[in-house]
C-alpha cells in the first residue's frame, strides 16, 4: 500500500514533452509488413483465409431472393423471439449475480492462495469446458434424478430440464464468465484510493460501491454485458443437451439453425445470417473496448 501509489505519479512534464516530440510528424514510418519473413506472411494469409472464407461463403450462398419470406416464417420468428427473450433474461441474471462475484474476486488478494486460485478456476471453467459437458452437468444437478432436481420435483412437482427456464439456466452458465472476467479486470483498474477517499468522506460500503467503484468500472461492465449477451444468444451445446429443442419453448436460433440444416438448408442459412448480424453488431458496439475490458 505504501508504495503502490507511487507508480501513479503523473508523468513529469519533461517526459511528456519528449514523448510528444517522438510522436511528431518527422518520425519515421513503422516498419512495413514486407519486412517480415515470407513464411510468416504466408502462414498469416492462410489464417486470414481460414477466418474469412467461411463467412464469405455464407454471405455468397445465402438465399437473398427468398430471405424476406424465410425470415417472416412463424418458426423463424418463434426462434428469434425465444432467443432474444432468454438471452435478455440470462444476461440480466449474469449482471445481477456476476457483478457482485466480480467485486468479490477483485478483493481476494489477501485471501489464501488456494481460495483465490480455486475461485478463479471455477469462474473460468465454463469458458474452457465444452458447452455440451456443461449441459450434462446441469442435467445431473437439476434433472429429474439430479442432486437438486430430485428433491425439487418431489417437493413441488417442478422439473426444470427441457423448459424455457432450462434454456435461461444453460445460457447463464456459459455466459457468466464473460461478464465476470471483464468486470473484474475493469475493477482492478479502478483507483483503490478513490474508494478509500469516498469512505473517509462518510460513504457507507454500499454507497462506495454504488457511487464510486462501479461507475469507475463502467466501461468494463458495458463490455462484459455485451460479450455476455452475445455468448448467451449464441449458446447451443448446453442448451440442446439440457433444454432440448422444442419449437416455441426451447428451440433457440442456434438450435433451430442446426436442425433446419437437415430439413431446409436455405432456412438454416437465413437463420445463420441473423446470428452473424448479431455478432457484427456486438463487435461494432465494442470496437477495441473488449480487449482492454477482458484482458486488463
Amino acid at each position, binding site marked *: 500500500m505504501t*508504495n503502490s501509489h507511487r507508480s501513479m505519479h503523473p508523468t513529469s512534464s519533461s517526459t511528456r514533452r519528449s514523448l510528444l516530440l517522438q510522436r511528431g510528424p518527422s518520425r519515421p514510418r513503422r516498419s512495413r509488413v514486407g519486412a517480415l519473413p515470407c513464411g510468416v506472411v504466408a502462414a498469416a494469409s492462410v489464417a486470414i483465409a481460414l477466418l474469412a472464407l467461411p463467412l464469405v461463403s455464407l454471405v455468397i450462398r445465402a438465399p437473398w431472393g427468398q430471405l424476406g419470406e424465410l425470415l417472416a416464417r412463424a418458426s423463424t420468428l418463434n426462434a428469434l423471439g425465444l432467443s432474444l427473450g432468454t438471452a435478455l433474461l440470462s444476461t440480466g441474471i449474469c449482471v445481477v449475480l456476476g457483478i457482485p462475484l466480480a467485486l468479490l474476486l477483485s478483493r481476494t488478494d489477501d485471501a489464501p492462495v488456494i481460495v483465490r486460485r480455486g475461485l478463479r478456476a471455477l469462474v473460468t471453467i465454463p469458458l474452457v469446458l465444452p458447452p455440451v459437458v456443461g449441459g450434462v452437468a446441469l442435467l445431473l444437478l437439476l434433472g429429474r434424478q439430479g442432486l437438486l432436481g430430485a428433491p425439487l420435483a418431489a417437493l413441488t412437482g417442478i422439473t426444470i430440464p427441457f423448459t424455457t427456464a432450462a434454456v435461461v439456466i444453460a445460457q447463464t452458465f456459459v455466459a457468466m464468465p464473460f461478464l465476470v472476467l471483464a468486470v473484474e479486470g475493469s475493477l482492478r483498474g479502478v483507483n483503490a484510493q478513490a474508494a478509500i477517499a469516498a469512505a473517509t468522506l462518510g460513504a457507507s460500503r454500499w454507497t462506495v460501491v454504488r457511487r464510486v467503484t462501479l461507475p469507475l468500472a463502467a466501461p468494463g461492465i458495458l463490455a462484459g454485458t455485451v460479450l455476455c449477451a452475445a455468448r448467451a444468444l449464441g449458446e447451443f451445446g448446453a442448451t440442446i443437451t439440457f433444454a432440448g429443442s422444442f419449437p416455441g419453448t426451447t428451440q433457440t436460433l442456434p438450435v433451430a439453425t442446426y436442425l433446419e440444416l437437415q430439413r431446409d438448408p436455405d432456412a438454416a442459412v437465413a437463420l445463420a445470417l441473423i446470428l452473424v448480424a448479431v455478432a457484427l453488431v456486438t463487435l461494432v458496439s465494442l470496437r477495441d473496448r473488449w480487449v482492454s475490458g477482458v484482458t486488463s
Partner: protein
Amino acid sequence: MSEPLTVRAQMLARRDAFELELGLEVEAGHPLAIIGPNGAGKSTALLALAGVHPLHAGRITVGDRVLTDVEAGIEVPPEHRRVGIVFQGYALFQHLTVRENVAFGPRAQGRGRDVAGALADSWIERVGLSEFAGRLPGALSGGQAQRVALARALAAEPEVLLLDEPLSALDIEIRDEVRADLARYVRQFAGVTIVVAHDRDDVAALADHVVVLERGGVAQHGTLAELSAAPATEFVRRFSGGIGEPR
C-alpha cells in the same frame, strides 16, 4: 476553555513482515509532518489513522472520541471517523464533476442535494475554482486537482485532515505557488492536520512539528530547527542539510 482538539495515537500495525510502531500527539493549530525514507511506514500510519489499515495493537483518540481501541474491540469504520484524507494522486472521482466531487461528502452524510450543492459551491469558491465547478477532473491541472481534493476533504467537515505527500505529484515550476496556497488552507483549518512529506520546504510551510519515521519506528521528533541542530540519524542530517531525501 478546554484544551484544543487533540489526536492521540499509539499504533502497532503489521503488513506482511513489516511492523510499524508509532506514537503521536497532535493538537489542532499545530500541524505535524511525518517524514522518513521510502518504506518507513508513513502512508501505513495515515491509513491506520483513517481506519483503512487495521491496527495490531493500540489506541487512537480524537478529543474524547475513541476511534480505535484494539484491546476494547473498538474500531470505528472510516465513514464515521471524521478523518479526511488527501492522497498524493488526489484520487478524485473521475466520473463526477468538480461540484459533485466536493458535494460527495455532504451527500454521503445525508444532506439534501441542494444543501450539499451549496456547501460544495462555497468550498469551491474558497479554493478559487468556481469557474471549473462543472468540469470533470480530467480537465484540471495538477494544482487545480489538488485544490479540489482538499475542498472535497474539507467539505465533509473532518476533525482530522491527513495529507499524503500533497505536493509530490506537482511540476516543480508551480510547486511554490501551490505550496503557499495549501499552507494557507491548512492554517485556516480548525481541526488537526497531519501531513506526510519528503521535501524540507513542504515541511517548513505546512507543519510546526516533525516526526521522523525510519524502518517502522520513530527515529526522532521535534521542530525543524531542533532536527537541524542535532540530527539523530543520517537521514535526518541529509534532510536538514537541504540535500533532500536519499533515494
